[in-house]
Protein backbone atom coordinates (compact mmCIF):
# COMPACT_ATOMS: atom_id res chain seq x y z
CA UNK A 1 0.00 0.00 0.00
CA UNK A 2 1.02 3.62 -0.31
CA UNK A 3 1.37 3.92 3.48
CA UNK A 4 3.77 0.97 3.56
CA UNK A 5 5.78 2.34 0.64
CA UNK A 6 5.99 5.75 2.28
CA UNK A 7 6.96 4.21 5.64
CA UNK A 8 9.93 2.50 4.03
CA UNK A 9 10.92 5.73 2.29
CA UNK A 10 10.35 7.84 5.37
CA UNK A 11 11.72 5.72 8.22
CA UNK A 12 14.72 8.02 8.20
CA UNK A 13 12.36 10.84 9.18
CA UNK A 14 12.02 9.35 12.65
CA UNK A 15 13.97 11.49 15.06
CA UNK A 16 14.26 14.30 12.55
CA UNK A 17 11.49 16.26 14.19
CA UNK A 18 10.10 18.05 11.15
CA UNK A 19 9.32 17.34 7.49
CA UNK A 20 11.64 19.20 5.11
CA UNK A 21 11.89 19.49 1.36
CA UNK A 22 14.78 17.08 1.12
CA UNK A 23 13.39 14.38 3.33
CA UNK A 24 10.05 14.15 1.55
CA UNK A 25 11.20 14.49 -2.07
CA UNK A 26 11.42 10.73 -2.41
CA UNK A 27 8.03 10.13 -0.80
CA UNK A 28 6.41 12.70 -3.10
CA UNK A 29 7.80 10.73 -6.04
CA UNK A 30 6.09 7.61 -4.64
CA UNK A 31 2.83 9.52 -4.30
CA UNK A 32 3.15 10.80 -7.87
CA UNK A 33 3.59 7.25 -9.17
CA UNK A 34 0.65 5.99 -7.12
CA UNK A 35 -1.62 8.72 -8.48
CA UNK A 36 -0.53 8.26 -12.11
CA UNK A 37 -1.10 4.52 -11.71
CA UNK A 38 -4.58 5.37 -10.47
CA UNK A 39 -5.19 7.29 -13.74
CA UNK A 40 -5.21 10.74 -12.16
CA UNK A 41 -4.46 13.30 -14.86
CA UNK A 42 -0.80 14.34 -15.06
CA UNK A 43 -1.52 18.06 -14.61
CA UNK A 44 -3.80 17.38 -11.64
CA UNK A 45 -1.06 15.18 -10.13
CA UNK A 46 1.49 18.01 -10.44
CA UNK A 47 -0.79 20.52 -8.71
CA UNK A 48 -1.77 17.98 -6.08
CA UNK A 49 1.85 17.14 -5.20
CA UNK A 50 2.65 20.86 -4.87
CA UNK A 51 -0.23 21.27 -2.43
CA UNK A 52 0.77 18.20 -0.41
CA UNK A 53 4.36 19.38 -0.26
CA UNK A 54 3.30 22.81 1.03
CA UNK A 55 1.02 21.25 3.64
CA UNK A 56 3.67 18.77 4.77
CA UNK A 57 6.61 21.14 5.11
CA UNK A 58 7.28 22.14 8.65
CA UNK A 59 4.84 19.61 10.05
CA UNK A 60 5.99 18.04 13.25
CA UNK A 61 6.51 14.33 13.00
CA UNK A 62 4.27 13.30 15.91
CA UNK A 63 5.60 10.14 17.44
CA UNK A 64 2.11 8.60 17.61
CA UNK A 65 1.90 8.49 13.80
CA UNK A 66 4.58 7.03 11.56
CA UNK A 67 5.91 9.64 9.10
CA UNK A 68 4.33 7.57 6.32
CA UNK A 69 0.97 7.70 8.07
CA UNK A 70 1.32 11.44 8.56
CA UNK A 71 1.94 12.14 4.89
CA UNK A 72 -0.82 9.71 3.86
CA UNK A 73 -3.20 11.50 6.22
CA UNK A 74 -2.32 14.83 4.58
CA UNK A 75 -2.82 13.26 1.14
CA UNK A 76 -6.08 11.54 2.11
CA UNK A 77 -7.54 14.72 3.62
CA UNK A 78 -6.52 16.74 0.58
CA UNK A 79 -8.09 14.14 -1.76
CA UNK A 80 -11.37 14.14 0.15
CA UNK A 81 -11.43 17.93 0.11
CA UNK A 82 -10.84 18.01 -3.66
CA UNK A 83 -13.41 15.32 -4.35
CA UNK A 84 -16.08 17.46 -2.74
CA UNK A 85 -17.28 17.44 0.80
CA UNK A 86 -20.84 18.47 -0.02
CA UNK A 87 -23.38 15.75 -0.80
CA UNK A 88 -24.73 16.98 -4.13
CA UNK A 89 -28.35 16.25 -5.00
CA UNK A 90 -30.21 16.33 -8.29
CA UNK A 91 -31.89 19.65 -9.05
CA UNK A 92 -35.62 19.25 -9.37
CA UNK A 93 -37.80 21.93 -10.89
CA UNK A 94 -40.42 23.72 -8.81
CA UNK A 95 -42.81 23.26 -11.72
CA UNK A 96 -42.94 19.70 -13.04
CA UNK A 97 -41.79 18.00 -15.08
CA UNK A 98 -38.14 18.18 -14.00
CA UNK A 99 -35.93 17.47 -16.97
CA UNK A 100 -32.72 15.47 -16.68
CA UNK A 101 -30.44 15.01 -19.68
CA UNK A 102 -27.82 12.23 -19.79
CA UNK A 103 -24.70 12.65 -21.98
CA UNK A 104 -21.24 11.12 -22.43
CA UNK A 105 -18.83 9.15 -24.57
CA UNK A 106 -19.75 5.90 -26.32
CA UNK A 107 -20.27 2.93 -24.03
CA UNK A 108 -19.88 4.86 -20.75
CA UNK A 109 -23.15 3.50 -19.33
CA UNK A 110 -25.70 6.23 -20.07
CA UNK A 111 -28.63 4.01 -21.06
CA UNK A 112 -28.13 1.72 -18.08
CA UNK A 113 -27.78 4.75 -15.78
CA UNK A 114 -30.97 6.28 -17.16
CA UNK A 115 -32.79 3.07 -16.17
CA UNK A 116 -31.13 3.08 -12.75
CA UNK A 117 -32.05 6.72 -12.13
CA UNK A 118 -35.67 6.10 -13.14
CA UNK A 119 -35.72 3.13 -10.76
CA UNK A 120 -34.33 5.24 -7.90
CA UNK A 121 -36.71 8.16 -8.46
CA UNK A 122 -39.68 5.81 -8.72
CA UNK A 123 -38.74 4.31 -5.34
CA UNK A 124 -38.76 7.86 -3.95
CA UNK A 125 -42.32 8.42 -5.08
CA UNK A 126 -41.69 10.20 -8.37
CA UNK A 127 -43.31 9.34 -11.72
CA UNK A 128 -40.39 9.27 -14.15
CA UNK A 129 -40.60 9.11 -17.93
CA UNK A 130 -37.66 7.66 -19.82
CA UNK A 131 -36.93 9.18 -23.22
CA UNK A 132 -35.09 7.18 -25.88
CA UNK A 133 -33.36 9.91 -27.88
CA UNK A 134 -30.53 7.80 -29.32
CA UNK A 135 -31.55 7.21 -32.91
CA UNK A 136 -28.08 6.13 -34.03
CA UNK A 137 -26.97 3.04 -32.15
CA UNK A 138 -28.60 -0.18 -33.43
CA UNK A 139 -31.37 -1.24 -31.03
CA UNK A 140 -30.68 1.63 -28.60
CA UNK A 141 -34.39 2.33 -28.39
CA UNK A 142 -35.12 -1.39 -27.83
CA UNK A 143 -32.53 -1.39 -25.06
CA UNK A 144 -34.16 1.48 -23.13
CA UNK A 145 -37.65 0.08 -23.77
CA UNK A 146 -36.57 -3.27 -22.33
CA UNK A 147 -35.11 -1.56 -19.25
CA UNK A 148 -38.29 0.50 -18.83
CA UNK A 149 -40.42 -2.66 -18.90
CA UNK A 150 -38.22 -4.26 -16.23
CA UNK A 151 -39.00 -1.47 -13.75
CA UNK A 152 -42.44 -0.58 -15.09
CA UNK A 153 -41.46 2.93 -16.16
CA UNK A 154 -42.88 4.28 -19.44
CA UNK A 155 -40.46 4.98 -22.28
CA UNK A 156 -41.21 7.73 -24.78
CA UNK A 157 -39.75 7.70 -28.26
CA UNK A 158 -40.57 8.26 -31.90
CA UNK A 159 -38.84 5.97 -34.37
CA UNK A 160 -39.54 8.38 -37.23
CA UNK A 161 -38.02 11.48 -35.61
CA UNK A 162 -34.58 12.87 -34.86
CA UNK A 163 -33.25 13.29 -31.30
CA UNK A 164 -34.13 16.99 -31.07
CA UNK A 165 -37.81 16.43 -31.95
CA UNK A 166 -38.01 13.39 -29.68
CA UNK A 167 -36.69 15.44 -26.77
CA UNK A 168 -39.11 18.30 -27.48
CA UNK A 169 -42.12 16.01 -27.90
CA UNK A 170 -41.26 14.11 -24.71
CA UNK A 171 -41.86 17.16 -22.52
CA UNK A 172 -45.41 17.64 -23.82
CA UNK A 173 -45.96 13.92 -23.49
CA UNK A 174 -44.78 14.03 -19.87
CA UNK A 175 -47.20 16.83 -19.07
CA UNK A 176 -50.14 15.12 -20.70
CA UNK A 177 -49.41 11.82 -18.93
CA UNK A 178 -48.66 13.38 -15.52
CA UNK A 179 -45.01 12.30 -15.39
CA UNK A 180 -43.04 14.61 -13.09
CA UNK A 181 -39.46 13.73 -14.11
CA UNK A 182 -38.20 13.31 -17.66
CA UNK A 183 -34.91 11.43 -18.15
CA UNK A 184 -33.50 11.93 -21.64
CA UNK A 185 -30.98 9.27 -22.72
CA UNK A 186 -28.80 10.48 -25.60
CA UNK A 187 -26.40 8.75 -27.99
CA UNK A 188 -22.77 8.29 -27.05
CA UNK A 189 -20.64 10.91 -28.81
CA UNK A 190 -17.07 12.09 -29.13
CA UNK A 191 -16.29 15.51 -27.66
CA UNK A 192 -14.58 16.35 -30.96
CA UNK A 193 -17.54 15.35 -33.12
CA UNK A 194 -18.77 18.83 -34.04
CA UNK A 195 -22.13 17.74 -35.45
CA UNK A 196 -22.95 15.58 -32.43
CA UNK A 197 -21.87 18.25 -29.94
CA UNK A 198 -24.10 20.73 -31.74
CA UNK A 199 -26.93 18.24 -31.38
CA UNK A 200 -26.67 18.12 -27.57
CA UNK A 201 -26.32 21.90 -27.48
CA UNK A 202 -29.55 22.25 -29.45
CA UNK A 203 -31.38 19.70 -27.28
CA UNK A 204 -30.27 21.66 -24.20
CA UNK A 205 -31.37 24.95 -25.73
CA UNK A 206 -34.72 23.52 -26.71
CA UNK A 207 -35.80 21.63 -23.58
CA UNK A 208 -33.81 23.58 -20.97
CA UNK A 209 -32.97 20.70 -18.63
CA UNK A 210 -32.94 21.24 -14.88
CA UNK A 211 -30.04 18.83 -14.66
CA UNK A 212 -27.43 17.63 -17.15
CA UNK A 213 -25.40 14.61 -16.06
CA UNK A 214 -22.10 13.66 -17.69
CA UNK A 215 -21.66 9.87 -17.52
CA UNK A 216 -18.07 8.63 -17.43
CA UNK A 217 -16.60 5.13 -17.35
CA UNK A 218 -14.48 4.96 -14.17
CA UNK A 219 -11.70 3.10 -16.00
CA UNK A 220 -11.01 6.08 -18.25
CA UNK A 221 -7.40 7.29 -18.34
CA UNK A 222 -5.83 10.65 -19.15
CA UNK A 223 -8.56 11.38 -21.71
CA UNK A 224 -10.99 12.10 -18.85
CA UNK A 225 -9.84 15.70 -18.62
CA UNK A 226 -9.87 16.36 -22.37
CA UNK A 227 -13.41 15.11 -22.79
CA UNK A 228 -14.83 16.54 -19.54
CA UNK A 229 -13.43 19.97 -20.39
CA UNK A 230 -14.99 20.03 -23.85
CA UNK A 231 -18.38 18.70 -22.71
CA UNK A 232 -18.36 21.24 -19.88
CA UNK A 233 -17.47 24.12 -22.19
CA UNK A 234 -20.13 23.13 -24.72
CA UNK A 235 -23.05 22.28 -22.42
CA UNK A 236 -22.03 23.21 -18.88
CA UNK A 237 -23.22 20.00 -17.23
CA UNK A 238 -24.36 20.00 -13.60
CA UNK A 239 -22.90 16.77 -12.36
CA UNK A 240 -20.95 13.64 -13.13
CA UNK A 241 -21.84 9.97 -12.87
CA UNK A 242 -18.95 7.52 -12.60
CA UNK A 243 -19.84 4.02 -13.77
CA UNK A 244 -18.45 0.48 -13.51
CA UNK A 245 -16.93 1.11 -10.09
CA UNK A 246 -17.77 -2.50 -9.24
CA UNK A 247 -14.54 -3.37 -11.06
CA UNK A 248 -11.01 -2.81 -9.72
CA UNK A 249 -10.15 0.39 -11.53
CA UNK A 250 -8.74 2.95 -9.08
CA UNK A 251 -10.90 5.67 -10.64
CA UNK A 252 -8.47 8.58 -10.62
CA UNK A 253 -10.66 10.20 -13.26
CA UNK A 254 -12.92 11.22 -10.37
CA UNK A 255 -10.22 13.50 -9.03
CA UNK A 256 -9.16 14.74 -12.46
CA UNK A 257 -12.64 15.68 -13.59
CA UNK A 258 -13.67 17.22 -10.29
CA UNK A 259 -10.60 19.40 -9.98
CA UNK A 260 -10.50 20.51 -13.61
CA UNK A 261 -14.18 21.29 -14.30
CA UNK A 262 -15.24 21.83 -10.69
CA UNK A 263 -18.48 19.87 -11.05
CA UNK A 264 -19.70 17.42 -8.39
CA UNK A 265 -19.85 13.67 -8.77
CA UNK A 266 -23.42 12.80 -7.90
CA UNK A 267 -23.77 9.05 -8.46
CA UNK A 268 -21.68 5.97 -9.02
CA UNK A 269 -22.65 2.87 -10.98
CA UNK A 270 -21.72 -0.36 -9.21
CA UNK A 271 -23.17 -3.08 -11.40
CA UNK A 272 -25.26 -3.97 -14.43
CA UNK A 273 -28.59 -4.39 -12.66
CA UNK A 274 -30.95 -1.43 -12.31
CA UNK A 275 -30.58 -1.27 -8.52
CA UNK A 276 -26.78 -0.90 -8.76
CA UNK A 277 -26.65 2.84 -8.21
CA UNK A 278 -25.11 4.58 -5.20
CA UNK A 279 -24.48 8.11 -4.04
CA UNK A 280 -20.92 9.35 -4.27
CA UNK A 281 -18.87 9.30 -1.06
CA UNK A 282 -15.59 11.25 -1.33
CA UNK A 283 -13.94 9.34 1.55
CA UNK A 284 -14.48 5.98 -0.15
CA UNK A 285 -13.20 7.34 -3.47
CA UNK A 286 -10.13 8.83 -1.80
CA UNK A 287 -9.20 5.45 -0.23
CA UNK A 288 -9.75 3.75 -3.56
CA UNK A 289 -7.57 6.19 -5.51
CA UNK A 290 -4.79 5.86 -2.94
CA UNK A 291 -4.89 2.10 -3.33
Amino acid at each position, binding site marked *: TLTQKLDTVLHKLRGQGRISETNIAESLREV*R*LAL*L*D*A*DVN*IQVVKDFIDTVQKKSLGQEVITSLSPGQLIVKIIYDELVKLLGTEKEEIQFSTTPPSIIMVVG*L*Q*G*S*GKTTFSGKLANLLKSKGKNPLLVAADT*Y*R*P*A*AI*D*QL*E*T*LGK*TIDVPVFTNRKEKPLSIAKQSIDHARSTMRDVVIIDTAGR*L*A*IDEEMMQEVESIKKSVQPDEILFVV*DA*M*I*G*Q*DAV*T*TAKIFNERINFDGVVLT*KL*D*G*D*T*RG*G*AALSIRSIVQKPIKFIGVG*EKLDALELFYPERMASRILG
Partner: protein
Amino acid sequence: ISATGKIDENFLEQLEEIFIRADVGAEATQTIIENIKKKVKEVRYETQEELQTIIREQLASIFVPNKYEEEPLTIPEGIKPYVIMVVGVNGAGKTTTIGKLANRYKEAGKEVFIGAADTFRAAANEQLEVWAQRAGVKIIQQKQGSDPAAVAFDTVQSAQSKNADVVIIDTAGRLHTKTHLMEELKKIKRAIQKSHSTAPHEILLVLDSTTGQNALQQAKLFNEVVGVTGLILTKLDGTAKGGIVFAVSRLINVPVRYIGVGEQMDDLQPFNSKKFVEALFS
Protein backbone atom coordinates in the same frame (compact mmCIF):
# COMPACT_ATOMS: atom_id res chain seq x y z
CA ILE B 1 28.30 17.93 -36.72
CA SER B 2 29.53 14.84 -34.92
CA ALA B 3 27.25 12.04 -33.80
CA THR B 4 26.16 12.06 -30.16
CA GLY B 5 24.71 9.38 -27.86
CA LYS B 6 23.13 11.87 -25.47
CA ILE B 7 19.59 13.24 -25.28
CA ASP B 8 18.76 16.67 -23.86
CA GLU B 9 17.08 16.46 -20.42
CA ASN B 10 14.27 18.83 -21.40
CA PHE B 11 13.54 16.72 -24.45
CA LEU B 12 13.31 13.61 -22.27
CA GLU B 13 10.88 15.35 -19.94
CA GLN B 14 8.71 16.35 -22.89
CA LEU B 15 8.81 12.77 -24.14
CA GLU B 16 7.79 11.48 -20.72
CA GLU B 17 4.81 13.84 -20.63
CA ILE B 18 3.66 12.78 -24.13
CA PHE B 19 3.76 9.14 -23.05
CA ILE B 20 1.93 9.68 -19.75
CA ARG B 21 -0.75 11.74 -21.49
CA ALA B 22 -1.16 8.94 -24.01
CA ASP B 23 -1.87 6.45 -21.17
CA VAL B 24 1.40 4.58 -21.72
CA GLY B 25 1.66 4.44 -17.91
CA ALA B 26 4.35 5.65 -15.50
CA GLU B 27 6.22 2.36 -15.22
CA ALA B 28 6.12 1.52 -18.94
CA THR B 29 7.20 5.09 -19.74
CA GLN B 30 10.25 4.70 -17.50
CA THR B 31 11.22 1.42 -19.18
CA ILE B 32 10.66 2.78 -22.68
CA ILE B 33 12.73 5.91 -21.99
CA GLU B 34 15.57 3.83 -20.52
CA ASN B 35 15.55 1.64 -23.63
CA ILE B 36 15.53 4.68 -25.90
CA LYS B 37 18.52 6.13 -24.03
CA LYS B 38 20.39 2.82 -24.36
CA LYS B 39 19.63 2.58 -28.08
CA VAL B 40 20.63 6.17 -28.75
CA LYS B 41 23.93 5.68 -26.85
CA GLU B 42 24.59 2.63 -28.98
CA VAL B 43 23.68 3.90 -32.47
CA ARG B 44 24.25 7.67 -31.98
CA TYR B 45 22.60 10.42 -34.05
CA GLU B 46 23.52 13.67 -35.79
CA THR B 47 20.20 15.35 -36.53
CA GLN B 48 16.88 15.74 -34.70
CA GLU B 49 15.26 13.74 -37.49
CA GLU B 50 17.57 10.83 -36.83
CA LEU B 51 16.73 10.95 -33.15
CA GLN B 52 13.01 11.00 -33.92
CA THR B 53 13.45 7.98 -36.20
CA ILE B 54 15.31 6.03 -33.52
CA ILE B 55 12.57 6.82 -30.98
CA ARG B 56 9.76 5.80 -33.33
CA GLU B 57 11.49 2.58 -34.30
CA GLN B 58 12.13 1.74 -30.67
CA LEU B 59 8.42 2.24 -29.89
CA ALA B 60 7.16 0.28 -32.89
CA SER B 61 9.44 -2.62 -31.98
CA ILE B 62 7.61 -3.09 -28.69
CA PHE B 63 4.62 -4.59 -30.47
CA VAL B 64 4.38 -8.29 -31.06
CA PRO B 65 4.48 -8.58 -34.85
CA ASN B 66 1.05 -9.06 -36.35
CA LYS B 67 1.77 -11.90 -38.74
CA TYR B 68 -1.44 -11.09 -40.59
CA GLU B 69 -0.71 -7.36 -40.96
CA GLU B 70 -0.37 -7.63 -44.73
CA GLU B 71 -3.29 -10.03 -45.08
CA PRO B 72 -5.50 -9.52 -42.00
CA LEU B 73 -8.24 -11.82 -43.22
CA THR B 74 -5.91 -14.79 -43.72
CA ILE B 75 -7.39 -18.09 -42.68
CA PRO B 76 -4.78 -20.79 -42.04
CA GLU B 77 -4.90 -23.81 -44.40
CA GLY B 78 -7.45 -26.47 -43.64
CA ILE B 79 -9.33 -24.64 -40.90
CA LYS B 80 -13.06 -24.58 -41.53
CA PRO B 81 -14.92 -22.93 -39.96
CA TYR B 82 -12.39 -20.46 -38.59
CA VAL B 83 -13.82 -19.58 -35.17
CA ILE B 84 -13.23 -16.22 -33.53
CA MET B 85 -14.40 -15.50 -29.99
CA VAL B 86 -14.67 -11.85 -28.92
CA VAL B 87 -14.31 -10.86 -25.26
CA GLY B 88 -13.84 -7.76 -23.12
CA VAL B 89 -15.31 -5.51 -20.46
CA ASN B 90 -18.64 -3.74 -20.73
CA GLY B 91 -19.05 -1.16 -23.46
CA ALA B 92 -15.61 -1.67 -25.05
CA GLY B 93 -17.06 -2.06 -28.54
CA LYS B 94 -17.27 -5.85 -29.05
CA THR B 95 -20.65 -6.04 -30.80
CA THR B 96 -19.92 -3.13 -33.14
CA THR B 97 -16.48 -4.56 -33.99
CA ILE B 98 -18.01 -7.94 -34.80
CA GLY B 99 -20.39 -6.27 -37.25
CA LYS B 100 -17.42 -4.58 -38.94
CA LEU B 101 -15.32 -7.76 -38.97
CA ALA B 102 -18.14 -9.90 -40.34
CA ASN B 103 -18.56 -7.39 -43.14
CA ARG B 104 -14.83 -7.52 -43.97
CA TYR B 105 -14.82 -11.30 -44.27
CA LYS B 106 -18.05 -11.22 -46.26
CA GLU B 107 -16.60 -8.70 -48.70
CA ALA B 108 -13.57 -10.98 -49.05
CA GLY B 109 -15.92 -13.70 -50.27
CA LYS B 110 -16.18 -15.68 -47.05
CA GLU B 111 -19.40 -17.10 -45.65
CA VAL B 112 -19.79 -15.84 -42.08
CA PHE B 113 -21.95 -16.95 -39.14
CA ILE B 114 -22.33 -14.69 -36.11
CA GLY B 115 -23.20 -16.18 -32.72
CA ALA B 116 -25.20 -13.92 -30.38
CA ALA B 117 -23.80 -15.35 -27.15
CA ASP B 118 -24.61 -12.26 -25.11
CA THR B 119 -27.85 -13.60 -23.72
CA PHE B 120 -27.81 -11.27 -20.75
CA ARG B 121 -27.92 -7.60 -21.70
CA ALA B 122 -31.10 -5.79 -22.77
CA ALA B 123 -31.50 -5.79 -26.57
CA ALA B 124 -28.10 -7.42 -27.17
CA ASN B 125 -29.65 -9.78 -29.73
CA GLU B 126 -31.46 -6.97 -31.51
CA GLN B 127 -28.27 -4.92 -31.70
CA LEU B 128 -26.27 -7.78 -33.24
CA GLU B 129 -29.18 -8.61 -35.55
CA VAL B 130 -28.94 -5.16 -37.11
CA TRP B 131 -25.21 -5.66 -37.72
CA ALA B 132 -25.77 -9.12 -39.22
CA GLN B 133 -28.33 -7.59 -41.60
CA ARG B 134 -25.99 -4.76 -42.56
CA ALA B 135 -23.12 -7.15 -43.24
CA GLY B 136 -25.38 -9.66 -44.98
CA VAL B 137 -24.40 -12.58 -42.78
CA LYS B 138 -26.27 -15.25 -40.84
CA ILE B 139 -26.90 -14.83 -37.14
CA ILE B 140 -27.62 -17.59 -34.62
CA GLN B 141 -29.40 -16.47 -31.48
CA GLN B 142 -31.61 -17.66 -28.64
CA LYS B 143 -33.90 -15.65 -26.40
CA GLN B 144 -32.57 -13.42 -23.62
CA GLY B 145 -31.64 -15.47 -20.56
CA SER B 146 -30.60 -18.59 -22.47
CA ASP B 147 -27.30 -20.36 -21.88
CA PRO B 148 -24.60 -18.45 -23.80
CA ALA B 149 -22.52 -21.62 -24.11
CA ALA B 150 -25.46 -23.28 -25.90
CA VAL B 151 -25.66 -20.39 -28.38
CA ALA B 152 -21.92 -20.60 -29.05
CA PHE B 153 -22.15 -24.38 -29.56
CA ASP B 154 -25.19 -23.99 -31.83
CA THR B 155 -23.47 -21.39 -33.94
CA VAL B 156 -20.38 -23.47 -34.62
CA GLN B 157 -22.55 -26.52 -35.35
CA SER B 158 -24.75 -24.60 -37.80
CA ALA B 159 -21.71 -23.09 -39.48
CA GLN B 160 -20.16 -26.52 -39.88
CA SER B 161 -23.32 -28.03 -41.32
CA LYS B 162 -23.58 -25.15 -43.82
CA ASN B 163 -19.86 -25.36 -44.64
CA ALA B 164 -19.33 -21.73 -43.64
CA ASP B 165 -15.84 -20.23 -43.57
CA VAL B 166 -15.88 -17.99 -40.50
CA VAL B 167 -17.70 -17.95 -37.17
CA ILE B 168 -17.59 -14.94 -34.89
CA ILE B 169 -18.94 -15.35 -31.35
CA ASP B 170 -20.07 -12.24 -29.48
CA THR B 171 -20.04 -12.46 -25.68
CA ALA B 172 -21.53 -10.25 -22.99
CA GLY B 173 -19.37 -7.49 -21.57
CA ARG B 174 -18.00 -8.50 -18.19
CA LEU B 175 -15.66 -7.05 -15.60
CA HIS B 176 -12.61 -9.29 -15.12
CA THR B 177 -13.08 -9.11 -11.35
CA LYS B 178 -16.36 -11.06 -11.49
CA THR B 179 -15.31 -14.66 -10.94
CA HIS B 180 -18.63 -16.23 -11.88
CA LEU B 181 -18.71 -14.30 -15.17
CA MET B 182 -15.14 -15.33 -15.97
CA GLU B 183 -16.17 -18.93 -15.22
CA GLU B 184 -19.02 -18.46 -17.69
CA LEU B 185 -16.52 -17.35 -20.31
CA LYS B 186 -14.50 -20.54 -19.74
CA LYS B 187 -17.72 -22.51 -20.21
CA ILE B 188 -18.44 -20.73 -23.51
CA LYS B 189 -14.93 -21.55 -24.73
CA ARG B 190 -15.35 -25.20 -23.70
CA ALA B 191 -18.64 -25.38 -25.60
CA ILE B 192 -16.92 -24.07 -28.72
CA GLN B 193 -14.15 -26.64 -28.25
CA LYS B 194 -16.76 -29.41 -27.89
CA SER B 195 -18.32 -28.54 -31.21
CA HIS B 196 -14.99 -28.24 -33.05
CA SER B 197 -11.86 -29.61 -31.43
CA THR B 198 -9.37 -26.98 -32.62
CA ALA B 199 -11.71 -24.03 -32.05
CA PRO B 200 -11.74 -21.24 -31.03
CA HIS B 201 -8.88 -20.33 -33.36
CA GLU B 202 -8.72 -16.72 -32.26
CA ILE B 203 -9.75 -15.08 -29.01
CA LEU B 204 -9.79 -11.32 -29.43
CA LEU B 205 -9.77 -9.02 -26.43
CA VAL B 206 -11.44 -5.71 -27.23
CA LEU B 207 -9.99 -2.70 -25.40
CA ASP B 208 -11.48 0.79 -25.39
CA SER B 209 -8.66 3.21 -26.22
CA THR B 210 -9.89 5.64 -23.55
CA THR B 211 -9.06 3.05 -20.86
CA GLY B 212 -6.27 3.84 -18.43
CA GLN B 213 -4.05 1.50 -16.43
CA ASN B 214 -6.93 -0.86 -15.62
CA ALA B 215 -6.45 -2.31 -19.12
CA LEU B 216 -3.45 -4.20 -17.73
CA GLN B 217 -5.63 -6.01 -15.18
CA GLN B 218 -8.22 -6.70 -17.87
CA ALA B 219 -5.64 -8.22 -20.20
CA LYS B 220 -4.00 -10.25 -17.43
CA LEU B 221 -7.23 -11.84 -16.21
CA PHE B 222 -8.92 -12.44 -19.57
CA ASN B 223 -5.68 -14.05 -20.72
CA GLU B 224 -5.47 -16.25 -17.60
CA VAL B 225 -9.07 -17.37 -17.97
CA VAL B 226 -9.44 -18.06 -21.70
CA GLY B 227 -6.12 -17.24 -23.33
CA VAL B 228 -6.12 -14.16 -25.55
CA THR B 229 -4.57 -14.44 -29.03
CA GLY B 230 -5.03 -10.88 -30.26
CA LEU B 231 -6.18 -7.38 -29.34
CA ILE B 232 -8.55 -4.90 -30.88
CA LEU B 233 -8.29 -1.27 -29.84
CA THR B 234 -11.52 0.71 -30.37
CA LYS B 235 -12.58 4.37 -30.45
CA LEU B 236 -9.25 5.64 -31.79
CA ASP B 237 -11.25 8.24 -33.73
CA GLY B 238 -11.54 10.10 -30.41
CA THR B 239 -8.91 12.07 -28.50
CA ALA B 240 -7.53 9.12 -26.52
CA LYS B 241 -4.26 7.65 -27.81
CA GLY B 242 -4.63 4.11 -26.49
CA GLY B 243 -1.08 4.09 -25.13
CA ILE B 244 -1.90 1.30 -22.68
CA VAL B 245 -1.60 -1.06 -25.63
CA PHE B 246 2.24 -1.00 -25.34
CA ALA B 247 2.23 -2.46 -21.83
CA VAL B 248 -0.67 -4.78 -22.59
CA SER B 249 0.86 -6.37 -25.67
CA ARG B 250 4.12 -6.83 -23.77
CA LEU B 251 2.31 -8.28 -20.74
CA ILE B 252 0.33 -10.97 -22.56
CA ASN B 253 2.58 -11.16 -25.63
CA VAL B 254 -0.05 -10.87 -28.37
CA PRO B 255 -0.38 -8.71 -31.50
CA VAL B 256 -2.87 -5.90 -32.00
CA ARG B 257 -5.02 -7.12 -34.90
CA TYR B 258 -7.34 -4.21 -35.64
CA ILE B 259 -8.29 -0.73 -34.56
CA GLY B 260 -11.81 0.72 -34.46
CA VAL B 261 -12.04 4.24 -35.84
CA GLY B 262 -15.73 4.99 -35.79
CA GLU B 263 -19.27 3.66 -35.44
CA GLN B 264 -19.93 2.69 -39.08
CA MET B 265 -19.34 -0.65 -40.75
CA ASP B 266 -16.19 0.43 -42.59
CA ASP B 267 -14.54 1.94 -39.53
CA LEU B 268 -12.15 -0.92 -38.88
CA GLN B 269 -8.49 -0.95 -39.92
CA PRO B 270 -5.74 -3.55 -39.61
CA PHE B 271 -3.29 -2.42 -36.94
CA ASN B 272 -0.21 -0.66 -38.29
CA SER B 273 2.45 -0.13 -35.62
CA LYS B 274 4.22 2.68 -37.50
CA LYS B 275 1.00 4.66 -37.98
CA PHE B 276 0.05 4.07 -34.36
CA VAL B 277 3.39 5.37 -33.09
CA GLU B 278 3.15 8.40 -35.38
CA ALA B 279 -0.32 9.21 -34.01
CA LEU B 280 1.12 9.27 -30.47
CA PHE B 281 3.10 12.36 -31.38
CA SER B 282 0.39 14.18 -33.33
